[in-house]
Protein backbone atom coordinates (compact mmCIF):
# COMPACT_ATOMS: atom_id res chain seq x y z
CA UNK A 1 0.00 0.00 0.00
CA UNK A 2 2.87 2.31 0.77
CA UNK A 3 4.16 1.61 -2.69
CA UNK A 4 0.96 2.74 -4.38
CA UNK A 5 0.89 5.83 -2.25
CA UNK A 6 4.19 6.96 -3.71
CA UNK A 7 3.18 6.01 -7.22
CA UNK A 8 0.11 8.12 -6.85
CA UNK A 9 2.03 11.06 -5.51
CA UNK A 10 4.62 10.93 -8.28
CA UNK A 11 2.08 10.43 -11.03
CA UNK A 12 -0.23 13.17 -9.85
CA UNK A 13 2.59 15.64 -9.34
CA UNK A 14 4.23 14.99 -12.70
CA UNK A 15 0.96 15.02 -14.56
CA UNK A 16 -0.16 18.28 -12.99
CA UNK A 17 3.17 19.89 -13.83
CA UNK A 18 3.01 18.52 -17.36
CA UNK A 19 -0.52 19.81 -17.77
CA UNK A 20 0.47 23.26 -16.59
CA UNK A 21 3.44 23.29 -18.96
CA UNK A 22 1.34 22.18 -21.90
CA UNK A 23 -1.40 24.70 -21.11
CA UNK A 24 1.23 27.44 -21.09
CA UNK A 25 2.41 26.27 -24.47
CA UNK A 26 -1.15 26.14 -25.72
CA UNK A 27 -1.91 29.68 -24.62
CA UNK A 28 1.35 30.84 -26.15
CA UNK A 29 0.67 29.11 -29.43
CA UNK A 30 -2.88 30.39 -29.76
CA UNK A 31 -1.73 33.90 -28.99
CA UNK A 32 1.12 33.66 -31.43
CA UNK A 33 -0.95 32.30 -34.28
CA UNK A 34 -3.95 34.55 -33.83
CA UNK A 35 -1.96 37.72 -33.26
CA UNK A 36 1.37 37.21 -34.93
CA UNK A 37 3.72 40.06 -34.32
CA UNK A 38 5.81 40.60 -37.38
CA UNK A 39 9.05 41.78 -35.97
CA UNK A 40 11.87 43.22 -37.90
CA UNK A 41 14.12 40.29 -38.39
CA UNK A 42 17.02 40.59 -36.11
CA UNK A 43 20.34 40.72 -37.77
CA UNK A 44 21.53 38.78 -34.77
CA UNK A 45 20.18 35.54 -36.14
CA UNK A 46 22.92 33.07 -35.49
CA UNK A 47 25.04 32.15 -38.43
CA UNK A 48 24.73 28.50 -37.70
CA UNK A 49 26.71 26.77 -40.36
CA UNK A 50 29.93 28.11 -41.65
CA UNK A 51 30.35 28.21 -45.37
CA UNK A 52 32.39 25.15 -46.26
CA UNK A 53 35.85 26.10 -47.33
CA UNK A 54 36.80 25.52 -50.90
CA UNK A 55 38.28 22.11 -51.45
CA UNK A 56 41.26 21.32 -53.58
CA UNK A 57 41.19 23.37 -56.74
CA UNK A 58 41.70 20.37 -58.98
CA UNK A 59 38.13 19.38 -58.25
CA UNK A 60 35.44 20.45 -60.67
CA UNK A 61 32.48 21.91 -58.88
CA UNK A 62 29.75 22.03 -61.42
CA UNK A 63 26.64 24.17 -61.33
CA UNK A 64 24.08 24.09 -64.11
CA UNK A 65 21.79 26.97 -64.78
CA UNK A 66 19.08 27.53 -67.32
CA UNK A 67 16.21 25.88 -69.14
CA UNK A 68 14.90 22.41 -69.84
CA UNK A 69 18.12 21.43 -71.61
CA UNK A 70 20.08 22.02 -68.42
CA UNK A 71 17.45 20.05 -66.57
CA UNK A 72 17.74 17.20 -69.01
CA UNK A 73 14.18 17.07 -70.31
CA UNK A 74 13.82 14.46 -73.01
CA UNK A 75 16.51 12.16 -71.65
CA UNK A 76 14.84 8.95 -70.59
CA UNK A 77 17.53 8.25 -68.04
CA UNK A 78 16.96 11.74 -66.60
CA UNK A 79 20.66 12.52 -66.71
CA UNK A 80 20.81 15.27 -69.30
CA UNK A 81 24.10 16.79 -70.36
CA UNK A 82 24.82 17.92 -66.80
CA UNK A 83 25.05 14.50 -65.21
CA UNK A 84 26.69 13.04 -68.29
CA UNK A 85 29.34 15.73 -68.15
CA UNK A 86 29.81 15.02 -64.47
CA UNK A 87 30.24 11.32 -65.14
CA UNK A 88 32.77 11.95 -67.89
CA UNK A 89 34.74 14.42 -65.79
CA UNK A 90 34.87 12.10 -62.81
CA UNK A 91 36.15 9.22 -64.93
CA UNK A 92 39.89 8.56 -65.08
CA UNK A 93 40.45 9.62 -61.50
CA UNK A 94 39.17 13.09 -62.18
CA UNK A 95 37.30 14.74 -59.39
CA UNK A 96 33.99 16.33 -60.13
CA UNK A 97 31.03 17.21 -58.02
CA UNK A 98 27.62 18.54 -58.91
CA UNK A 99 26.67 21.44 -56.68
CA UNK A 100 23.25 21.73 -58.16
CA UNK A 101 21.18 21.71 -61.27
CA UNK A 102 19.04 24.81 -61.40
CA UNK A 103 17.53 24.01 -64.75
CA UNK A 104 13.84 24.81 -64.93
CA UNK A 105 11.61 23.81 -67.80
CA UNK A 106 10.69 26.73 -69.97
CA UNK A 107 13.00 29.23 -68.35
CA UNK A 108 13.55 32.35 -70.45
CA UNK A 109 16.28 34.95 -70.27
CA UNK A 110 13.90 37.23 -68.37
CA UNK A 111 13.24 34.61 -65.73
CA UNK A 112 16.90 33.71 -65.44
CA UNK A 113 17.76 37.38 -64.95
CA UNK A 114 15.45 37.57 -61.95
CA UNK A 115 16.61 34.18 -60.69
CA UNK A 116 20.16 35.45 -60.57
CA UNK A 117 19.04 38.01 -58.02
CA UNK A 118 18.11 35.27 -55.55
CA UNK A 119 20.52 34.81 -52.73
CA UNK A 120 20.42 31.03 -52.92
CA UNK A 121 21.35 31.01 -56.60
CA UNK A 122 24.12 33.51 -56.04
CA UNK A 123 25.45 31.46 -53.18
CA UNK A 124 25.54 28.33 -55.32
CA UNK A 125 27.25 30.28 -58.12
CA UNK A 126 29.95 31.46 -55.76
CA UNK A 127 30.72 27.89 -54.71
CA UNK A 128 31.14 26.61 -58.24
CA UNK A 129 34.15 26.68 -60.50
CA UNK A 130 32.46 25.27 -63.57
CA UNK A 131 29.19 26.91 -64.55
CA UNK A 132 27.11 25.49 -67.38
CA UNK A 133 24.46 27.77 -68.81
CA UNK A 134 21.80 26.84 -71.28
CA UNK A 135 19.34 29.60 -72.04
CA UNK A 136 17.74 31.34 -74.98
CA UNK A 137 15.88 28.56 -76.71
CA UNK A 138 12.63 29.47 -75.08
CA UNK A 139 13.00 33.14 -76.01
CA UNK A 140 13.72 32.32 -79.60
CA UNK A 141 11.06 29.70 -80.19
CA UNK A 142 8.38 30.98 -77.90
CA UNK A 143 6.94 33.86 -79.93
CA UNK A 144 5.48 31.11 -82.03
CA UNK A 145 3.50 29.58 -79.20
CA UNK A 146 5.75 26.59 -79.54
CA UNK A 147 6.30 26.28 -75.81
CA UNK A 148 2.69 26.71 -74.84
CA UNK A 149 3.16 30.41 -74.03
CA UNK A 150 3.31 30.17 -70.29
CA UNK A 151 1.87 32.95 -68.20
CA UNK A 152 4.92 32.87 -65.98
CA UNK A 153 7.99 30.83 -66.57
CA UNK A 154 7.31 28.83 -63.44
CA UNK A 155 4.06 27.38 -64.66
CA UNK A 156 5.44 26.27 -67.95
CA UNK A 157 3.16 23.59 -69.11
CA UNK A 158 2.69 21.30 -72.00
CA UNK A 159 5.32 19.69 -74.08
CA UNK A 160 5.61 21.38 -77.43
CA UNK A 161 3.77 19.85 -80.31
CA UNK A 162 5.57 21.23 -83.33
CA UNK A 163 3.32 19.77 -85.95
CA UNK A 164 0.36 21.68 -84.61
CA UNK A 165 1.95 25.01 -83.99
CA UNK A 166 4.84 25.05 -86.39
CA UNK A 167 2.70 26.80 -88.95
CA UNK A 168 2.73 29.90 -86.79
CA UNK A 169 6.48 29.84 -86.62
CA UNK A 170 7.64 32.34 -89.21
CA UNK A 171 11.15 33.56 -89.90
CA UNK A 172 10.04 36.99 -88.75
CA UNK A 173 8.75 35.73 -85.39
CA UNK A 174 11.97 33.85 -84.83
CA UNK A 175 14.12 36.89 -85.47
CA UNK A 176 11.85 39.36 -83.73
CA UNK A 177 12.64 38.04 -80.27
CA UNK A 178 16.34 38.03 -80.89
CA UNK A 179 17.63 41.56 -80.12
CA UNK A 180 15.86 41.89 -76.77
CA UNK A 181 16.74 38.39 -75.65
CA UNK A 182 20.34 38.84 -76.72
CA UNK A 183 20.58 41.96 -74.62
CA UNK A 184 19.31 40.01 -71.61
CA UNK A 185 21.78 37.22 -72.29
CA UNK A 186 24.52 39.83 -72.19
CA UNK A 187 23.39 41.07 -68.82
CA UNK A 188 23.07 37.51 -67.53
CA UNK A 189 26.65 36.75 -68.51
CA UNK A 190 27.81 39.99 -66.90
CA UNK A 191 25.96 39.15 -63.69
CA UNK A 192 27.42 35.66 -63.56
CA UNK A 193 30.89 37.06 -64.14
CA UNK A 194 30.31 39.57 -61.35
CA UNK A 195 29.05 36.97 -58.89
CA UNK A 196 31.89 34.59 -59.52
CA UNK A 197 34.76 36.04 -61.55
CA UNK A 198 36.94 32.96 -61.01
CA UNK A 199 34.67 30.28 -62.39
CA UNK A 200 34.86 28.93 -65.90
CA UNK A 201 31.55 29.56 -67.63
CA UNK A 202 30.35 27.41 -70.51
CA UNK A 203 27.43 28.63 -72.52
CA UNK A 204 25.68 25.90 -74.48
CA UNK A 205 24.91 27.16 -77.97
CA UNK A 206 21.54 26.58 -79.57
CA UNK A 207 20.64 24.11 -82.24
CA UNK A 208 17.71 24.25 -84.64
CA UNK A 209 15.08 21.76 -83.49
CA UNK A 210 12.81 22.47 -86.44
CA UNK A 211 15.10 21.32 -89.19
CA UNK A 212 12.77 18.43 -89.93
CA UNK A 213 10.03 20.80 -91.06
CA UNK A 214 11.09 21.85 -94.56
CA UNK A 215 9.72 25.39 -94.49
CA UNK A 216 11.41 26.05 -91.15
CA UNK A 217 14.80 24.64 -91.97
CA UNK A 218 16.33 27.75 -93.46
CA UNK A 219 14.72 30.43 -91.26
CA UNK A 220 15.35 28.34 -88.19
CA UNK A 221 18.97 27.85 -89.08
CA UNK A 222 19.34 31.55 -89.78
CA UNK A 223 17.77 32.58 -86.48
CA UNK A 224 19.78 30.10 -84.45
CA UNK A 225 23.01 31.05 -86.19
CA UNK A 226 22.28 34.72 -85.64
CA UNK A 227 21.69 33.99 -81.95
CA UNK A 228 24.82 31.91 -81.60
CA UNK A 229 26.88 34.61 -83.32
CA UNK A 230 25.53 37.26 -81.00
CA UNK A 231 26.19 35.06 -78.02
CA UNK A 232 29.72 34.38 -79.26
CA UNK A 233 30.35 38.11 -79.55
CA UNK A 234 29.33 38.67 -75.95
CA UNK A 235 31.13 35.64 -74.61
CA UNK A 236 34.38 36.70 -76.23
CA UNK A 237 34.36 39.78 -74.05
CA UNK A 238 34.83 37.59 -70.99
CA UNK A 239 38.13 35.80 -70.81
CA UNK A 240 36.78 32.92 -68.71
CA UNK A 241 33.76 32.08 -70.84
CA UNK A 242 33.41 29.60 -73.64
CA UNK A 243 30.62 28.91 -76.07
CA UNK A 244 30.06 25.22 -76.63
CA UNK A 245 28.52 24.81 -80.07
CA UNK A 246 25.80 22.24 -80.56
CA UNK A 247 24.39 23.38 -83.87
CA UNK A 248 26.34 20.89 -85.95
CA UNK A 249 25.60 18.03 -83.56
CA UNK A 250 21.94 18.06 -84.44
CA UNK A 251 21.92 19.49 -87.92
CA UNK A 252 20.50 16.85 -90.26
CA UNK A 253 20.54 14.26 -87.45
CA UNK A 254 17.38 15.41 -85.76
CA UNK A 255 15.65 12.06 -86.03
CA UNK A 256 18.55 10.37 -84.28
CA UNK A 257 19.24 12.78 -81.48
CA UNK A 258 15.96 14.45 -80.64
CA UNK A 259 13.47 12.94 -78.25
CA UNK A 260 9.84 12.23 -79.03
CA UNK A 261 8.75 15.80 -78.46
CA UNK A 262 10.81 16.90 -81.49
CA UNK A 263 12.30 19.67 -79.42
CA UNK A 264 14.56 18.37 -76.67
CA UNK A 265 17.54 16.09 -77.26
CA UNK A 266 17.26 12.43 -76.31
CA UNK A 267 19.82 10.53 -74.29
CA UNK A 268 22.20 10.17 -77.23
CA UNK A 269 21.82 13.82 -78.08
CA UNK A 270 22.69 14.82 -74.53
CA UNK A 271 25.62 12.43 -74.63
CA UNK A 272 27.02 14.20 -77.68
CA UNK A 273 26.52 17.58 -76.03
CA UNK A 274 28.28 16.42 -72.88
CA UNK A 275 31.25 15.16 -74.88
CA UNK A 276 31.62 18.64 -76.32
CA UNK A 277 31.42 20.19 -72.91
CA UNK A 278 34.02 17.84 -71.49
CA UNK A 279 36.37 18.72 -74.34
CA UNK A 280 35.90 22.37 -73.54
CA UNK A 281 36.37 21.92 -69.80
CA UNK A 282 39.67 20.07 -69.86
Amino acid at each position, binding site marked *: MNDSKWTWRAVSLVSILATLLLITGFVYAVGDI*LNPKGEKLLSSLPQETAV*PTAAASDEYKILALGDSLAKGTGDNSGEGFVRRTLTALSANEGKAELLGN*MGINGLTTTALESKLKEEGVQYALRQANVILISIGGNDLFRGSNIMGTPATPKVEGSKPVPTASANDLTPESLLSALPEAAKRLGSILDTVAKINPQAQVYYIGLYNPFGDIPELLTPGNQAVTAWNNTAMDMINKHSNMTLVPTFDLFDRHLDKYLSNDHFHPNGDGYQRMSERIVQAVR
Partner: protein
Amino acid sequence: MTNLLPLIRNECLKIIKKKRFYVILLILLVLVPMFTYAQMRIAERSRDKFNSDWRLEIQQQITDNQNSLGSDRIPEEWKSYRRVFLQQLQYYLDHDVNPNEPSGVTFTREFLNNSVSLFIPLLIMAVASDLVSGERTTGTIKMLLTRPVRRWKVLFSKMAALLMFVSLIVLSVFVISYLISGLAFGYKGFNVPVFTGFQISGDTVDMSKVHAVAQWKYLLMQGGLIWFVSIVVALLAFMVSVLVRSTAASIVVMMAALIAGTILTNMASAWTAAKYLFMVNMELTTYLAGTPAPIEGMTLGFSMAVLGIWGLAAVIISFAVFTKRDILN
Protein backbone atom coordinates in the same frame (compact mmCIF):
# COMPACT_ATOMS: atom_id res chain seq x y z
CA MET B 1 -17.00 16.44 -2.89
CA THR B 2 -14.42 15.18 -0.46
CA ASN B 3 -14.49 11.69 -1.81
CA LEU B 4 -13.56 12.66 -5.38
CA LEU B 5 -9.80 12.70 -4.82
CA PRO B 6 -9.57 9.14 -3.53
CA LEU B 7 -11.65 8.04 -6.49
CA ILE B 8 -9.30 9.75 -8.95
CA ARG B 9 -6.40 8.21 -7.13
CA ASN B 10 -7.99 4.84 -7.39
CA GLU B 11 -8.53 5.22 -11.14
CA CYS B 12 -4.96 6.38 -11.67
CA LEU B 13 -3.63 3.36 -9.84
CA LYS B 14 -5.83 1.13 -11.92
CA ILE B 15 -4.39 2.57 -15.13
CA ILE B 16 -0.88 2.06 -13.81
CA LYS B 17 -1.55 -1.44 -12.52
CA LYS B 18 -2.97 -2.44 -15.86
CA LYS B 19 0.43 -1.50 -17.32
CA ARG B 20 -1.15 0.39 -20.18
CA PHE B 21 1.18 3.29 -19.65
CA TYR B 22 4.22 1.03 -19.75
CA VAL B 23 3.03 -0.38 -23.04
CA ILE B 24 2.89 3.13 -24.43
CA LEU B 25 6.39 3.85 -23.24
CA LEU B 26 7.56 0.59 -24.71
CA ILE B 27 6.00 1.41 -28.08
CA LEU B 28 7.78 4.74 -28.05
CA LEU B 29 11.07 3.15 -27.09
CA VAL B 30 10.81 0.75 -30.00
CA LEU B 31 9.48 3.09 -32.67
CA VAL B 32 11.40 6.29 -32.04
CA PRO B 33 14.80 4.65 -32.65
CA MET B 34 13.45 3.37 -35.95
CA PHE B 35 12.38 6.83 -37.03
CA THR B 36 15.64 8.23 -35.82
CA TYR B 37 17.59 5.73 -37.84
CA ALA B 38 15.56 6.47 -40.97
CA GLN B 39 16.09 10.17 -40.46
CA MET B 40 19.80 9.59 -40.00
CA ARG B 41 20.02 7.77 -43.29
CA ILE B 42 18.27 10.65 -45.04
CA ALA B 43 20.67 13.12 -43.48
CA GLU B 44 23.64 11.00 -44.48
CA ARG B 45 22.48 10.75 -48.04
CA SER B 46 21.95 14.44 -48.47
CA ARG B 47 25.33 15.08 -46.86
CA ASP B 48 26.92 12.92 -49.55
CA LYS B 49 25.01 14.61 -52.31
CA PHE B 50 25.37 18.20 -51.26
CA ASN B 51 28.68 18.15 -49.49
CA SER B 52 26.95 19.06 -46.23
CA ASP B 53 26.02 22.45 -47.61
CA TRP B 54 22.40 22.97 -46.74
CA ARG B 55 22.13 26.12 -48.82
CA LEU B 56 22.78 24.17 -52.00
CA GLU B 57 20.34 21.52 -50.88
CA ILE B 58 17.57 24.04 -50.23
CA GLN B 59 18.24 25.79 -53.52
CA GLN B 60 17.99 22.46 -55.31
CA GLN B 61 14.77 21.72 -53.47
CA ILE B 62 13.39 25.05 -54.63
CA THR B 63 14.38 24.34 -58.21
CA ASP B 64 12.85 20.88 -58.14
CA ASN B 65 9.61 22.24 -56.79
CA GLN B 66 9.54 24.95 -59.42
CA ASN B 67 9.93 22.29 -62.04
CA SER B 68 7.14 20.18 -60.65
CA LEU B 69 4.88 23.23 -60.68
CA GLY B 70 5.21 23.16 -64.42
CA SER B 71 3.77 19.71 -64.77
CA ASP B 72 0.17 19.50 -65.86
CA ARG B 73 -0.34 16.19 -64.15
CA ILE B 74 -0.08 17.61 -60.66
CA PRO B 75 -3.43 18.57 -59.12
CA GLU B 76 -3.98 22.23 -58.47
CA GLU B 77 -4.22 21.79 -54.67
CA TRP B 78 -0.80 20.18 -54.52
CA LYS B 79 0.57 22.98 -56.62
CA SER B 80 -0.67 25.63 -54.26
CA TYR B 81 0.78 23.63 -51.39
CA ARG B 82 4.10 23.55 -53.16
CA ARG B 83 3.99 27.23 -53.98
CA VAL B 84 3.54 28.00 -50.31
CA PHE B 85 6.30 25.58 -49.37
CA LEU B 86 8.56 27.16 -51.95
CA GLN B 87 8.09 30.65 -50.64
CA GLN B 88 8.88 29.48 -47.13
CA LEU B 89 12.04 27.73 -48.27
CA GLN B 90 13.05 30.88 -50.08
CA TYR B 91 12.43 32.84 -46.90
CA TYR B 92 14.68 30.56 -44.89
CA LEU B 93 17.35 30.76 -47.55
CA ASP B 94 17.15 34.53 -47.78
CA HIS B 95 17.62 34.81 -44.04
CA ASP B 96 20.39 32.25 -43.95
CA VAL B 97 18.64 29.93 -41.52
CA ASN B 98 18.72 26.20 -42.06
CA PRO B 99 15.16 24.88 -41.70
CA ASN B 100 16.38 21.35 -41.10
CA GLU B 101 19.42 21.90 -38.96
CA PRO B 102 19.96 18.33 -37.81
CA SER B 103 19.59 18.05 -34.04
CA GLY B 104 17.56 16.14 -31.53
CA VAL B 105 15.32 19.15 -31.10
CA THR B 106 14.61 19.46 -34.81
CA PHE B 107 13.87 15.78 -35.01
CA THR B 108 11.43 16.05 -32.13
CA ARG B 109 9.71 18.98 -33.82
CA GLU B 110 9.36 17.15 -37.11
CA PHE B 111 8.36 13.89 -35.49
CA LEU B 112 5.59 15.53 -33.50
CA ASN B 113 4.34 17.38 -36.55
CA ASN B 114 3.91 14.06 -38.26
CA SER B 115 2.46 12.17 -35.34
CA VAL B 116 -0.23 14.55 -34.19
CA SER B 117 -2.94 13.13 -36.40
CA LEU B 118 -2.46 9.42 -35.91
CA PHE B 119 0.38 8.26 -33.72
CA ILE B 120 -0.29 10.23 -30.56
CA PRO B 121 -4.07 9.67 -30.73
CA LEU B 122 -3.32 5.97 -31.01
CA LEU B 123 -1.27 6.05 -27.83
CA ILE B 124 -4.01 7.92 -26.07
CA MET B 125 -6.59 5.41 -27.17
CA ALA B 126 -4.53 2.71 -25.55
CA VAL B 127 -5.55 4.22 -22.24
CA ALA B 128 -8.87 5.85 -23.03
CA SER B 129 -10.65 3.17 -24.99
CA ASP B 130 -10.46 0.74 -22.14
CA LEU B 131 -11.56 2.88 -19.22
CA VAL B 132 -15.25 2.09 -19.08
CA SER B 133 -15.70 -0.71 -21.56
CA GLY B 134 -12.89 -2.61 -19.85
CA GLU B 135 -14.86 -2.63 -16.62
CA ARG B 136 -17.85 -3.94 -18.46
CA THR B 137 -15.89 -6.66 -20.19
CA THR B 138 -14.51 -7.92 -16.90
CA GLY B 139 -17.74 -7.29 -15.03
CA THR B 140 -16.09 -5.17 -12.36
CA ILE B 141 -18.41 -2.31 -13.24
CA LYS B 142 -21.08 -3.85 -11.03
CA MET B 143 -18.78 -3.78 -8.06
CA LEU B 144 -17.92 -0.21 -8.79
CA LEU B 145 -21.49 0.94 -9.06
CA THR B 146 -22.78 -0.87 -6.00
CA ARG B 147 -20.57 1.37 -3.85
CA PRO B 148 -22.32 4.29 -2.22
CA VAL B 149 -20.91 6.74 -4.71
CA ARG B 150 -22.86 8.73 -7.25
CA ARG B 151 -22.43 7.52 -10.79
CA TRP B 152 -21.30 10.84 -12.16
CA LYS B 153 -18.52 10.84 -9.59
CA VAL B 154 -17.32 7.48 -10.79
CA LEU B 155 -17.27 8.70 -14.36
CA PHE B 156 -15.73 12.02 -13.43
CA SER B 157 -12.89 10.35 -11.58
CA LYS B 158 -12.19 8.18 -14.60
CA MET B 159 -12.17 11.21 -16.86
CA ALA B 160 -9.87 13.15 -14.56
CA ALA B 161 -7.44 10.26 -14.41
CA LEU B 162 -7.56 10.05 -18.19
CA LEU B 163 -6.75 13.73 -18.61
CA MET B 164 -3.82 13.36 -16.26
CA PHE B 165 -2.47 10.55 -18.36
CA VAL B 166 -3.00 12.51 -21.57
CA SER B 167 -0.56 15.11 -20.29
CA LEU B 168 1.84 12.39 -19.25
CA ILE B 169 1.68 10.73 -22.65
CA VAL B 170 2.23 13.95 -24.58
CA LEU B 171 5.13 14.82 -22.33
CA SER B 172 6.71 11.41 -22.64
CA VAL B 173 6.48 11.49 -26.43
CA PHE B 174 8.45 14.73 -26.34
CA VAL B 175 10.98 13.54 -23.82
CA ILE B 176 11.59 10.14 -25.34
CA SER B 177 11.92 11.35 -28.90
CA TYR B 178 14.30 14.08 -27.77
CA LEU B 179 16.43 11.76 -25.67
CA ILE B 180 16.67 9.04 -28.29
CA SER B 181 17.17 11.22 -31.35
CA GLY B 182 19.72 13.22 -29.40
CA LEU B 183 21.92 10.15 -29.33
CA ALA B 184 22.15 10.35 -33.10
CA PHE B 185 21.88 14.07 -33.81
CA GLY B 186 23.13 15.70 -30.64
CA TYR B 187 21.22 17.36 -27.86
CA LYS B 188 21.82 20.94 -28.90
CA GLY B 189 19.58 23.12 -30.98
CA PHE B 190 17.19 24.68 -28.51
CA ASN B 191 18.07 28.17 -29.63
CA VAL B 192 18.00 27.64 -33.36
CA PRO B 193 15.46 30.04 -34.83
CA VAL B 194 12.32 28.73 -36.48
CA PHE B 195 10.10 30.99 -38.51
CA THR B 196 6.43 31.12 -37.76
CA GLY B 197 3.57 33.44 -38.60
CA PHE B 198 3.29 32.75 -42.30
CA GLN B 199 -0.12 34.02 -43.33
CA ILE B 200 -1.45 31.95 -46.16
CA SER B 201 -4.12 33.18 -48.49
CA GLY B 202 -4.58 30.91 -51.43
CA ASP B 203 -1.30 30.58 -53.25
CA THR B 204 0.60 33.41 -51.70
CA VAL B 205 2.24 33.73 -48.35
CA ASP B 206 2.10 37.01 -46.52
CA MET B 207 5.52 37.40 -44.96
CA SER B 208 4.82 40.60 -43.05
CA LYS B 209 3.96 38.78 -39.83
CA VAL B 210 6.74 36.24 -39.96
CA HIS B 211 8.96 36.18 -36.94
CA ALA B 212 11.68 33.98 -35.61
CA VAL B 213 11.04 31.89 -32.53
CA ALA B 214 13.66 29.94 -30.64
CA GLN B 215 13.15 26.27 -31.19
CA TRP B 216 12.45 25.49 -27.53
CA LYS B 217 9.60 27.96 -27.59
CA TYR B 218 8.33 26.48 -30.79
CA LEU B 219 8.37 23.06 -29.16
CA LEU B 220 6.44 24.41 -26.21
CA MET B 221 3.77 25.88 -28.46
CA GLN B 222 3.63 22.70 -30.46
CA GLY B 223 3.21 20.73 -27.26
CA GLY B 224 0.31 22.92 -26.22
CA LEU B 225 -1.51 22.44 -29.49
CA ILE B 226 -0.90 18.71 -29.46
CA TRP B 227 -2.15 18.57 -25.90
CA PHE B 228 -5.39 20.24 -26.90
CA VAL B 229 -5.92 17.80 -29.76
CA SER B 230 -5.07 14.91 -27.47
CA ILE B 231 -7.60 16.00 -24.88
CA VAL B 232 -10.33 16.04 -27.50
CA VAL B 233 -9.31 12.64 -28.83
CA ALA B 234 -9.23 11.31 -25.28
CA LEU B 235 -12.73 12.61 -24.55
CA LEU B 236 -14.08 11.12 -27.76
CA ALA B 237 -12.45 7.77 -27.11
CA PHE B 238 -13.82 7.95 -23.60
CA MET B 239 -17.32 8.51 -24.91
CA VAL B 240 -17.02 5.58 -27.30
CA SER B 241 -15.81 3.48 -24.43
CA VAL B 242 -18.92 4.41 -22.47
CA LEU B 243 -21.20 3.66 -25.39
CA VAL B 244 -19.72 0.37 -26.53
CA ARG B 245 -19.63 -2.78 -24.54
CA SER B 246 -16.28 -4.20 -25.53
CA THR B 247 -12.86 -2.61 -25.60
CA ALA B 248 -12.06 -4.05 -28.99
CA ALA B 249 -15.11 -2.43 -30.55
CA SER B 250 -14.27 0.82 -28.89
CA ILE B 251 -10.75 0.83 -30.30
CA VAL B 252 -11.98 -0.11 -33.77
CA VAL B 253 -14.50 2.73 -33.81
CA MET B 254 -11.90 5.31 -32.87
CA MET B 255 -9.28 3.92 -35.21
CA ALA B 256 -11.70 3.97 -38.11
CA ALA B 257 -12.54 7.59 -37.40
CA LEU B 258 -8.90 8.60 -37.20
CA ILE B 259 -7.85 6.77 -40.33
CA ALA B 260 -10.82 8.18 -42.19
CA GLY B 261 -9.55 11.56 -41.05
CA THR B 262 -6.12 11.09 -42.59
CA ILE B 263 -7.61 9.84 -45.81
CA LEU B 264 -10.06 12.72 -45.94
CA THR B 265 -7.36 15.30 -45.30
CA ASN B 266 -5.55 14.03 -48.33
CA MET B 267 -8.46 14.30 -50.67
CA ALA B 268 -11.21 16.32 -49.10
CA SER B 269 -10.53 19.73 -50.53
CA ALA B 270 -13.46 19.26 -52.87
CA TRP B 271 -15.88 18.28 -50.13
CA THR B 272 -15.82 21.39 -47.99
CA ALA B 273 -18.37 20.23 -45.46
CA ALA B 274 -15.79 17.73 -44.23
CA LYS B 275 -14.14 20.54 -42.32
CA TYR B 276 -16.77 20.15 -39.60
CA LEU B 277 -15.47 16.66 -38.80
CA PHE B 278 -13.11 16.51 -35.87
CA MET B 279 -10.61 14.22 -37.54
CA VAL B 280 -9.90 16.67 -40.34
CA ASN B 281 -9.09 19.38 -37.83
CA MET B 282 -6.55 17.51 -35.79
CA GLU B 283 -3.39 18.89 -37.33
CA LEU B 284 -3.36 22.10 -35.37
CA THR B 285 0.42 22.28 -35.67
CA THR B 286 0.11 23.10 -39.36
CA TYR B 287 -1.11 26.55 -38.38
CA LEU B 288 2.09 27.01 -36.45
CA ALA B 289 4.31 25.79 -39.26
CA GLY B 290 2.36 27.74 -41.83
CA THR B 291 1.44 24.89 -44.13
CA PRO B 292 -1.88 25.24 -45.90
CA ALA B 293 -4.88 23.72 -44.16
CA PRO B 294 -6.44 20.76 -45.95
CA ILE B 295 -9.65 22.59 -46.73
CA GLU B 296 -10.02 26.19 -47.80
CA GLY B 297 -11.29 28.41 -45.02
CA MET B 298 -9.92 26.48 -42.06
CA THR B 299 -8.15 28.58 -39.47
CA LEU B 300 -6.82 27.89 -36.02
CA GLY B 301 -9.91 29.44 -34.43
CA PHE B 302 -12.19 27.37 -36.60
CA SER B 303 -10.38 24.11 -35.94
CA MET B 304 -10.26 24.74 -32.22
CA ALA B 305 -13.94 25.54 -32.16
CA VAL B 306 -14.78 22.37 -34.07
CA LEU B 307 -12.60 20.26 -31.81
CA GLY B 308 -13.96 21.98 -28.71
CA ILE B 309 -17.55 21.36 -29.70
CA TRP B 310 -16.87 17.70 -30.45
CA GLY B 311 -15.06 17.31 -27.14
CA LEU B 312 -17.84 19.00 -25.19
CA ALA B 313 -20.48 16.91 -26.90
CA ALA B 314 -18.50 13.81 -26.00
CA VAL B 315 -18.44 14.80 -22.35
CA ILE B 316 -22.17 15.51 -22.27
CA ILE B 317 -23.06 12.28 -24.02
CA SER B 318 -20.75 10.24 -21.79
CA PHE B 319 -22.31 11.57 -18.60
CA ALA B 320 -25.86 11.44 -19.89
CA VAL B 321 -25.54 7.85 -20.99
CA PHE B 322 -23.52 6.60 -18.07
CA THR B 323 -25.76 8.03 -15.36
CA LYS B 324 -28.97 6.85 -16.97
CA ARG B 325 -28.17 3.48 -18.38
CA ASP B 326 -29.04 0.16 -16.80
CA ILE B 327 -26.09 -2.08 -16.32
CA LEU B 328 -27.09 -5.51 -17.51
CA ASN B 329 -25.22 -8.70 -18.31
